[in-house]
């Protein structure tokens, strides 16, 4: 760990998030340079959780933009609610002033982050789902920290530059202009040592033997050949929860090679079958 303090805009991890010093300094430098941070990595390496952790530890409100494939950039910025306005003009029984368009402009997630009085954390999750145009256009907005509302011809500029975290699951790279504008980090899958810490944070009073056995078995099963979707941290946590809840299950069983609840770890049926075969055949991990 570097000697960063939690007090003034320095990030050093949160309650349920284990942070390595490398990532901490990357987060800090991205905040200082006011550049978005693009995170890649296998599912389950805590890309999304990082944003939650930053917001928690620095006390900044978190705004999440879940990117969808059909999304248009404008939806992320603002929406002009024509329907309400039409309805109001018809009946005139609302408190809104129909002749004032601005009353009918609703901010989208990016708009909210810009308009907030306090500095916010803006998480743009799974950017790779959208098409490249969306990505590039969005980066333009984030670069300039402002956008126009066409209906009112008003420019919205950010009061406080939000801390922007972008995650991507894509195996292929994003476009060059996009990459040029953000910092990049690839979160590797945690090694067993790291994983012990993660489990320790999630289950503070778990039986040490059970945790160790489960982690060993987990990494063993990740190495089974031909698995399409390897179990990730989320699956391990759920699995340990299941083992923990089962009063008939004892920590020493796992050492003996008894591995129940495979379905928690493997969610695709061919994977499940393969894991089951491997477990029953070898009885060792």
């Amino acid at each position: 760990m570097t000697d960063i303090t939690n007090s003034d805009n320095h990030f050093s991890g949160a309650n349920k998030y284990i942070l390595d010093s490398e990532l901490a300094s990357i987060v800090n430098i991205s905040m200082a340079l006011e550049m978005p941070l693009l995170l890649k990595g296998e599912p389950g390496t805590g890309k999304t959780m990082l944003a939650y952790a930053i917001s928690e530890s620095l006390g900044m409100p978190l705004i999440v933009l879940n990117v969808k494939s059909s999304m248009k950039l404008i939806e992320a910025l603002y929406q002009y609610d024509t329907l309400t306005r039409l309805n109001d003009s018809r009946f005139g029984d609302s408190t809104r002033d129909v002749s004032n368009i601005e009353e009918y402009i609703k901010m989208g997630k990016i708009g909210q982050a810009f308009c907030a009085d306090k500095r916010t954390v803006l998480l743009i999750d799974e950017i790779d789902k959208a098409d490249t145009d969306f990505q590039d256009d969005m980066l333009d907005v984030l670069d300039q920290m402002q956008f126009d509302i066409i209906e009112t011809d008003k420019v919205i500029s950010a009061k406080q530059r939000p801390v922007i975290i972008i995650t991507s699951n894509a195996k292929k790279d994003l476009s060059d202009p996009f990459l040029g504008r953000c910092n990049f980090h690839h979160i590797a899958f945690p090694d067993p040592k790291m994983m012990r810490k993660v489990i320790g944070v999630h289950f503070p009073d778990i039986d040490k033997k059970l945790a160790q056995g489960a982690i060993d078995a987990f990494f063993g099963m990740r190495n089974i050949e031909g698995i399409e979707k390897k179990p990730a941290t989320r699956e391990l946590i759920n699995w340990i929860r299941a083992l923990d809840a089962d009063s008939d299950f004892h920590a020493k069983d796992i050492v003996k090679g008894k591995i129940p609840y495979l379905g928690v770890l493997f969610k695709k049926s061919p994977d499940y079958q393969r894991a089951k075969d491997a477990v029953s055949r070898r009885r060792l991990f």
Partner: protein
Amino acid sequence: MFIRFFYKLKEVGIPVTPTSFLTLQKALQKGLILSLDEFYTSARAILVKSERYFDLYDQVFAFYFEGIPLPENDGFEVDEIAKAMLDEWLKNPRELANALGVDESELKNLTPEELIEYFKKRLKDQDGQHHGGHKWIGTGGTSPVGHSGYHPGGMRVGGESRNKSAVKVANERRYKDYSTTGPLTEANMAEALKRLRNMTPVGPKDQINIDDTIKATMRNGGEIELLFDRSLRDRLKVMLVIDNGGWSMDPYISMVQTLFDYARSQFKEIKTYFFHNTIYDYVWEDSARYRKPVKVDDFIKADPDTRFIIIGDASMAPYELMAQDGTIHISERSGKPSIERLQFIQDTFPNSVWLNPVSERMWGYTHTIAAISQIFPMYELSLDGLEKAVETLMAKN
């Protein structure tokens, strides 16, 4: 500061940009980077934008700051070429050994690592450029490695486009193993059908239906109620062209037809045609390929938006594909080689794919598969392949 470091990164083939270098300078100037450790992580986050270059970055970093010599500074490209050669070796040891002019058995004793080292050495032995020979790696030769040469079964190992293409090659190879599922069977028909579901273009519900809106508003006694329709997008037209000549295709024909038959309602129309081995001047509407010939030239009249799907094993004698009178049926000879016909179809229907029941691992062995997959995006007739094919078919042009 660190300008040499920057250029070293560029030299080994990491795509670094001046803008990002300036950002790094800004960070340094602001006093954000205080130790070498911080410099290591920060410079990487700012300069290197893909995890694929992390390893290379590490090497350059160690070289620049700690004087550790770059491991045989071959750069990324040579690495990749050597890897490609290893792949080729695994597929076809004799040919590669011949191309390098060494004894096959000599290479056989080496481990993969040693092989890579050996290939690298050979690559470096080669002084300057080499074009048109038949032993070395260069361009236009007959060696299986290199590019734009005659040896369609061989592979491209990067040429003019330099680093990028090698990276792309590396990238493609890395995910090659992902589609391990075998060919489609009746058992996973339902799964396959699900993959096809994605072949429906639907617009968002964003168009006001004026008639319905008026009606609904009247019924409400004047209170406005707006009704929306999905914006109109026409359903797809599909042409299914099946190779039904030869026993190798038999198990798949009825299955593929059933598959698309089930999915029929989601398409505007499906037309099925048949051919044998490869397409010449005609395809047939009847499976006996006798009664109802359709001229390939007439395809030009069809909607170019049609999704054109060819199912065949693409395996035949090379001359059937390349020669001017390649067809085995004398009545079909018109002087145009089949490969030109295929290109014509691909030009007519930009959204076309070729589904091949032959396992992808075997494609490298068959000359004609390589040649045809240059024209059509080719996918395995498996669940994974089908999924990818649908993705390609639905991609925006």
